[in-house]
């Protein structure tokens, strides 16, 4: 099992429809291939963590990095892990029209995000905190969030 974390920039701002389409596509594809993780999106900033078997994840990352919807894909980690830290795949972003989204499976409002799971090493949990900070900015980082990460 490996996990990969990357950051990228959307080529143009993604609309609610774009994000919903991406959510739908990824949720189904990932569930089928046992890929879990989380994607953060805000104002053109993208960060994603995916975990799964290397023979699935490596070609998937290849495909994602060539996806025309974003560019400037920077891989931050790509390494072996002992266990999964996410039970499913989800996406967190601020929709322009939040109603309707809240009920969507796999969707999260950024401030509803919980601290990185404790199955991650502290270095990896910090990495997730940092990419989250980079995407959403300090406002959506609840003060106690950082505290509870490594409790």
């Amino acid at each position, binding site marked *: 099992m490996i996990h990969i974390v990357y*950051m990228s920039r959307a080529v143009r701002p993604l609309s609610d429809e774009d994000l919903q389409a991406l959510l739908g596509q990824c949720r189904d594809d990932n569930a089928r291939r046992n890929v879990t993780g989380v994607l953060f999106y805000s104002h053109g900033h993208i960060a994603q963590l995916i975990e799964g078997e290397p023979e699935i994840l490596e070609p998937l990352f290849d495909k994602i990095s060539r996806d025309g919807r974003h560019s400037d894909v920077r891989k931050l*980690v790509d*390494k072996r892990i002992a266990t999964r830290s996410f039970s499913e795949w989800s996406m967190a972003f601020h929709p322009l029209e939040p109603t309707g989204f809240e009920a969507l499976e796999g969707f999260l409002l950024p401030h509803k995000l919980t601290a990185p799971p404790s199955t991650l090493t*502290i*270095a990896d949990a*910090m990495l997730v905190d*940092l990419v989250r*900070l*980079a995407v959403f900015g*300090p406002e959506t980082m609840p003060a106690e969030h950082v505290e509870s990460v490594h409790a």
Partner: protein
Amino acid sequence: MREEQLRDILHHMPAGVVTLQGPELRFGFVNEAMRAVLGDGVREGQSIAEPAGLVPADLLEVMQQVYQSDRPFVAKSYCIPQPAADGQPPRLRYFDIALEPVHEGGGPVSGLLLFAVDVTVQEEARQRAHELSIETRRLDTRLRVLTETVPQITFTINAEGKFEYVSPQWYYFTGQPPTTDLNAIWPLLIHPDDRLRVLYQADTARASGIGWNFEYRLRRHDGQYRWLLSRALPEFLAPDKPVFWHGALTEIHDQRELSEALRQGEAELRFLADSIPELIWTATSDGFIDYYNQFTGEYTGLTQEELGPTGWINLLEPSEQAGAARRWVQSIATGEPYESLCRMRRHDGHYRWHIIRARQLTDTRGPRWFGACTDVDDQHRLREVLQTQYDELARTNRDLDTFVYTASHDLKQPLLNLRGLFDELRRTATFHDPEDAKIQGMVDGALTQLDATLQELAATVQDQRGLTAPAEALDLRSVAEEVLLGLRAQVQDIGAAVELDFEAVPTLTYGRANLRSILHNLLSNALKFADAERTPLVRVQSQLTEAGRPVLRVEDNGLGMVLPDNSTAVFQPFTRQHPHIAGAGVGMYLVQRIVTSRGGHLDVASTVGEGTTFTIYWFD
């Protein structure tokens, strides 16, 4: 039949044919094409001059002159405006016109034969070509002005690599005369270190039919070599067959010097960072480390890839990782400087104390973080040793105070007795010698002074140390751990194991300073008299007696001692069981004094070569 045929042919000829007769030039034969040109107002026998404006005046005049002079005339591209028809704008039509004098029966001129061939299309094409050539000349001029005023040198090279054109800037730049042989001179002006490379690169590009883009130094008129960027693209006349390369030379000397200086500066800084025996790193504005200096690799034994953007956290002592990570995320979120004191793992697994500091730099290249980890292990350890020594001194000081206090207290009773006896003696005995009375007075004075001194001593120490502080509920474990902390150097030195078991009686109501003093003396004794033959083991245990009174047992497996018959002798001041071991010898005396002063007693059992057990009965 033949004539009719001829007429027919003439009638349908695509050129206009008309015969004009007599000096009045009356219409004779007019074919269809001619009718189309002259219009319907043409009648046989009518003079061509009659319907005014049918033929332009100048043509009419020429016709009359041809008639009179008997000399044929040919006019090329003669313009006859066509009348506007059906709302169409009037159109200019052009004809090649031939006028032939006709001599009927070989006599004098009797008429004219006029041929008119429509050449409008050709004429229009010719005019367009003319306009085009004017436009081309204009564009050419513009191009020349442009190529000669831009700061770049522009050039054209043919497929053989020979210069076809070079803009005047080249001559200004090189200072060469306009007559110079470009192809011979140019290569000689290229910096010797660049020449071969440039010639090869240009040659290769031409051979493969592609453009080029390279930099080289060219000698300027003042003899200085300046960096130029040469870019050229091929022009194809047929696919795959480039015939010319057009390009430009841009002077990039200053940029190149600047970036060279930057590169140089960066290389120097990096060299500096790599030479410092300290862990130095930089991070992106998002908080991901993107550079570790060479020493980091040497210290950690890990490569930049192995460390990764957040891997430094893994180097910290595990209990310190979470706090450090939290503070780093906090610094990235706020931009505040980062600072922490952490133990960092060396390649051999050893942890050393470091101060980690990082600050954010914001300049034109956007915010970045610069950090350093300074090894403060030696300072840290020195401080620990000093702290231990300080603790030890403070304790000794306290013990001495306690000793002074208890001693002054202990001396009070004998003094009281002495005073009683002396008063009794003075009352019952009679002294005759007046010197005796003087001595009596001196003894009295000395006793009073001794009493005052003892009291003062007790009061001073008492105030300073709070030895008579009121009893309070104390957590035995935390006080014991506090005391052990002060003794950790000794514990580590001999590798002793200390077991604490306060389950039966976790708290005790006692004076804090007193309890600390007791535990300190008992524990440091146990450590001091350890037997080098075995691993020192000290067991501290609280218990309840059958009567329900709290007891504390301190048991060691040290040297042990021979107890005198009266075991209280052990507790006399300056009694030292093991003269070869350092110590003031007042410790056990103090313990005993404290315990008894608070209403308890101290018990000891010992076997030489096995160990010693002290039992404190807190309250009898």
